[in-house]
């Protein structure tokens, strides 16, 4: 994990490496200053020598100036490299997400990817900055202050060693126990979030069933367990303060006692004693800081792991070594295809063997979960088959360059997604250099031109995020127009006109017949009406092909198809109740 993250420092490497250098220099200055302070007191004030006060005062000012300079440099470099790392991490993740296959996206979930790219990255950014600025400072402060102590008085420094030992043992125990609690707390946060999320998205159900109090008690339970754990964890961390103070103060008293003896004995000056007082605070403060760093690093380790997962994810689909760059025609063949969304999971499609000629119009119908969409997904290689092969233009889809394949096989997805931007910009996803006239032509075919012209800004109308300012049916038609602009050899519509009224639906299909006769059209639908005019219709049932024939033949020989047909056209003349009871 650390390796993955550190590799992303890239062009900010020198800044990251120099930060500790500046910090070190700053620390050295900070250590020297109390020593000079002691000289001011001893050699200046104590000795009644105003010249020495000036001399050492000037020296101290010079040191402080350098300390300031180094401090500023360290601060800048730390900010530079940590924000740079954050930017690189976002970029690396985003770049890899672009390579993700559909199943990779399913695996991480959209919400998961968004949190990783935002919250997790800013966690790492602050952790990295802290690492650069303080993790060198703390031990360095400690070691050099200790060194200075021994330099002043070796025997008295034993007090420091004992104090440090006691504190280290205490901190180790404290941190390891707190880290466990914090991990638990993160889980509790997820629970709390879960309750809120469910409540908010199911608010209509909650209100309809008058379950507000039920939900409140669920929430209170989650809030209470979060509270209990937090109090426990913070209570543990609160021990830090008194124990630290206890050790510092005990050291000060010990120092006062033995220091007095040494001064009386003539082996220590009063100035040196004040220096020692200030060093003891430095040392123990550094130890404290170190403990905080460790706690924070353990907390951000979770974020780091999550980021590394995205960066290191090997997309399960890649371009072949020697890709085919040309799609001959729109013929589609399924050769004994088996497919499952999860490795080793249940098959969503079983033994599919279908052969579709270029330019044919094919309808696919079947119940929920019968595998209609899966069939379409495989043609544009949004997923890879588990067994068998899917061929387009006679060539296995896995042998094509993916860009080439998806340029020729376009699937209009079930969930119609538009992006914020103008209508024209959205259409041009299909063809970046399309002229306004081309876009209008595509919209005319998709029966979208009329309503787009109706908007005050026409094709320059802005679409809000999520496309919420156009209706579901309008969104679907724009998505179809966008696909048409690609002039694909195979066009797959996955229930893409479900929110479009019947008459318009018919007009769109009519336009397909007239304008793009050479394109293979695969229309997936729940409605008989949308597919009855197709050259041939595939009836899917439970992941298998139940029938593949013309409307007339299916009506005659296929039971499922006839059922659906009866249901949707005759509306069921009251006899379906009897049927239901028979089953």
């Amino acid at each position, binding site marked *: 994990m650390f390796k993955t993250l550190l590799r992303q420092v890239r062009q900010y490497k020198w800044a990251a490496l120099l930060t500790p250098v500046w910090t070190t220099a700053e620390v050295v200055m900070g250590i020297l200053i109390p020593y000079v302070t002691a000289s001011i007191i001893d050699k200046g004030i104590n000795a009644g020598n105003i010249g020495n006060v000036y001399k050492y005062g000037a020296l101290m000012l010079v040191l402080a100036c350098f300390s300031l300079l180094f401090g500023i440099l360290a601060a800048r470099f730390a900010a530079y490299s940590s924000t740079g790392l954050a930017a690189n991490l976002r970029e690396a993740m985003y770049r890899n997400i672009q390579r993700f296959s559909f199943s990779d996206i399913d695996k991480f979930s959209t919400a998961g990817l968004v949190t990783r790219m935002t919250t997790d990255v800013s966690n790492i950014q602050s952790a990295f900055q802290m690492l650069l600025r303080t993790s060198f400072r703390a031990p360095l402060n400690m070691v050099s202050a200790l060194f200075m102590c021994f330099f002043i008085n070796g025997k008295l420094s034993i007090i420091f060693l004992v104090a440090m030992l006691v504190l280290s043992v205490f901190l180790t125990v404290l941190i390891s126990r707190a880290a466990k609690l914090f991990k638990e707390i993160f889980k509790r946060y997820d629970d709390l979030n879960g309750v809120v999320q469910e409540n908010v998205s199911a608010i209509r159900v909650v209100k309809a069933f*008058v379950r507000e109090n039920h939900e409140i008690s669920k929430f209170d339970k989650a809030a209470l367990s979060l509270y209990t754990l937090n109090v426990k964890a913070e209570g543990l961390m609160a021990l830090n303060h008194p124990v630290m103070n206890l050790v510092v103060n005990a050291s000060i008293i010990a120092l006062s006692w033995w220091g007095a003896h040494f001064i009386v004995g003539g082996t220590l000056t009063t100035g040196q004693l004040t220096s020692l007082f200030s060093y003891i605070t430095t040392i123990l403060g550094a130890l404290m800081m170190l403990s905080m760093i460790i706690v924070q690093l353990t907390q951000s380790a979770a974020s780091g792991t999550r980021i590394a997962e995205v960066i290191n994810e090997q997309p399960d689909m890649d371009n072949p070594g020697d890709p085919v760059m040309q799609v001959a025609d729109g013929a589609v063949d399924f050769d004994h295809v088996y497919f499952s969304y999860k490795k080793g999971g249940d098959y969503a499609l079983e033994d599919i063997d279908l052969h579709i000629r270029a330019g044919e119009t094919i309808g696919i119908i079947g119940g929920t979960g019968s595998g209609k969409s899966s069939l379409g997904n495989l043609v544009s290689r949004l997923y890879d088959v588990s067994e068998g092969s899917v061929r387009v233009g006679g060539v296995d889809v896995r042998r094509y360059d993916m860009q080439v394949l998806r340029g020729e096989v376009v699937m209009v997805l079930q969930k119609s997604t538009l992006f*914020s931007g103008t209508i024209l910009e959205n259409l041009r996803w299909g063809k970046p250099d399309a002229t306004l006239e081309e876009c209008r032509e595509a919209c005319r075919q998709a029966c979208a031109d009329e309503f787009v012209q109706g908007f005050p800004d026409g094709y320059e109308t802005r679409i809000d995020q999520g496309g919420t300012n156009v209706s*579901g049916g309008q969104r679907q038609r724009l998505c179809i127009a966008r696909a048409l602009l690609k002039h694909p050899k195979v066009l797959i519509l996955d229930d893409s006109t479900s929110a479009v009224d019947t008459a318009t639906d018919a007009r769109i299909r009519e336009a397909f017949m007239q304008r793009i006769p050479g394109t293979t059209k695969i229309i997936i639908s729940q409605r008989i009406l949308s597919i009855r005019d197709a050259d041939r219709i595939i009836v899917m049932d439970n992941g298998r092909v139940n029938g593949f024939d013309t409307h007339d033949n299916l009506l005659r020989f296929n039971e499922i198809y006839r059922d659906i047909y009866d249901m949707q056209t005759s509306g069921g003349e009251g006899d379906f109740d009897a049927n239901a009871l028979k089953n």
Partner: protein
Amino acid sequence: MRGGDRGPRGGATLKDLRNIGTVRRLFAFIFANYKISLIVVLVCIVISSLTSLASSLFTRTLIDDYILPMLSSQAASDLLGDAGVGPDYRPLAVALFKLAGILLAGIAAGYAYNVIMIFVGQGTMRKLREQVFRHMETLPLRFFDNHSHGDVMSVYTNDIDTLRQVIGSSVPRLFQSLITIAATFVSMLVLSLPLTLVSIVVAFAMFKVTRTMGNLSRKYFTERQKNLGIVNGFIEEMVSGQKVVKVYCHEQQAMEEFSVINERLRKSVYNANRIGNIIMPVNHNLAEFGYVLLAIVGALIALGGWQGWWLCGLDGAALTLGTIVSFLTLQRNFTRPVSQISNEINSIVMASAGTDRVYALLDEASEPDAGKVSLVNVDARMQEVPERTGRWAWKRPDGSLRPLEGLVSLDTVDFSYVPEKQVLFDISLTAYPGQKIAFVGGTGAGKTTITNLINRFYEIQDGTITYDGFNVSDIEKDSLRRSLGIVLQETQLFSGTVLENIRYGRLDATDEECRAAARLVYADAFIRRLPNGYDTVLSADGGNLSQGERQLLAIARAAVANPPVLILDEATSSIDTRTEKLIQAGMDSLMKGRTTFVIAHRLSTVQNADYIMVLEKGRIIERGKHWELLEQKGKYYELYTGNQISA
């Protein structure tokens, strides 16, 4: 670490705090709940600040009153030649014991207030969370329509979490700093007037510098927040639409766009953090400058031999070596809190964005509910009974009962979600007890909206809706909704077992009742095929079930609730026609004897309704029985002969 980026610190003053109304409300809330705790905390803070002051003053006592006299007595005894008698350490030992006692008291006080503040801080967060959630449950649906789920959720975690920092550490530290400054200031005055003056100058300079830099960084901070929003928005949108990006091979372009805004974000974060980071070393070294200045001034006064009351401290004593040393230590005590104060104020200002959002949610108006008529269970003799009997009655405010029949009537109802866009016009209809009323029409015709008005998800603008003769606004909201079972278009499941999800319809239903409900709507078969049957744990989004199976569970949920009146909004839209055929019998028995409102786009569901309302653009354009409407050869006929009513 949650939420990570807290931004640069420093630069705010108490003046900024005055502008923040919500922070004041938060403090009022805390004070109201934890009055005694806070007084104890204040006392503890005073004790702990004074003891730490005592320990720094001790340096002077140690040197002036103990070590130097010992040195001189040593010198004296050396002079006298009696080497055997060493200096007397007893007074020192006594003084050190006293000090130890004071320090222990300080540590105890410090620990005590820290622990109390944990309870106060975490307790406040918990109370606030619960209060926000409780309030959220009373908000009208309009609120949920207008706010994204992400926004609402971040109130509970991000926003409330920033308060922990404020309550738990910023505020006590702010108090401690103020007390320390005050106490230190007094002791400094006692020790030496001129040196105090120097200290004030230094502290003022630090304050000024911090403020200037803070202002500077705030400009960048605003920019940073803006860019952060842009990047987050981009990621949110593009990652959600990633499948489309792939289908259109838009990856390269998306990457390029992202690089541009990502770089812009990096720059602004760098600018903001750079200045924020510098504040600390600048303050630190300014304090060092002050230290040198004091040493020089002190030495000049002490060695210059000048006299005068203005060169002394308030205690009237002239400047001694020990005084200077003590003063130098005090100086550190004085400058540290100065820079700390502006840090803490700054973090309170940052958190105020969080408190703003928390209180914005708490200030949202609740659903109006002035109804007095309630729903009660009655026995066969029309006497109110506490247990569930399957018989219902309305209880008027005067205690009289009226049996629930299920007569729902809308009279010239107008409605709009937003004032300028009316959705329903002049809707009048009556559903007599036990009738099945169907609504058909295109998207946006207003079908769902009508049902949303009956259970008062939204308030009507004009006209009246009555239920068994009561105006629905006179019925308690909870009672009204309990009397209406509803199956919604979008199925929502809760994380929990299948059984728990069905039981959501009626919390006191037995396992057997839940299973019976499932059998009634033909959900039993697929449930038993699940890995753990009725005990299979479902995730919130029901990822392991198909849309149709989820709808079956929602119907079972309504069945177990067994309500007097039913609303089915496209309840079977995702169930394929064959399964729908299967559950039709169940649905029919569910609807039997109840007033039912049905919205559907399948004719099979609609045509045996007692009345069919054809809606277009918010108006009822045709109404009647199936065959009557066919004879009219109007819109319904058109839809019917098109074989499929568009959804």
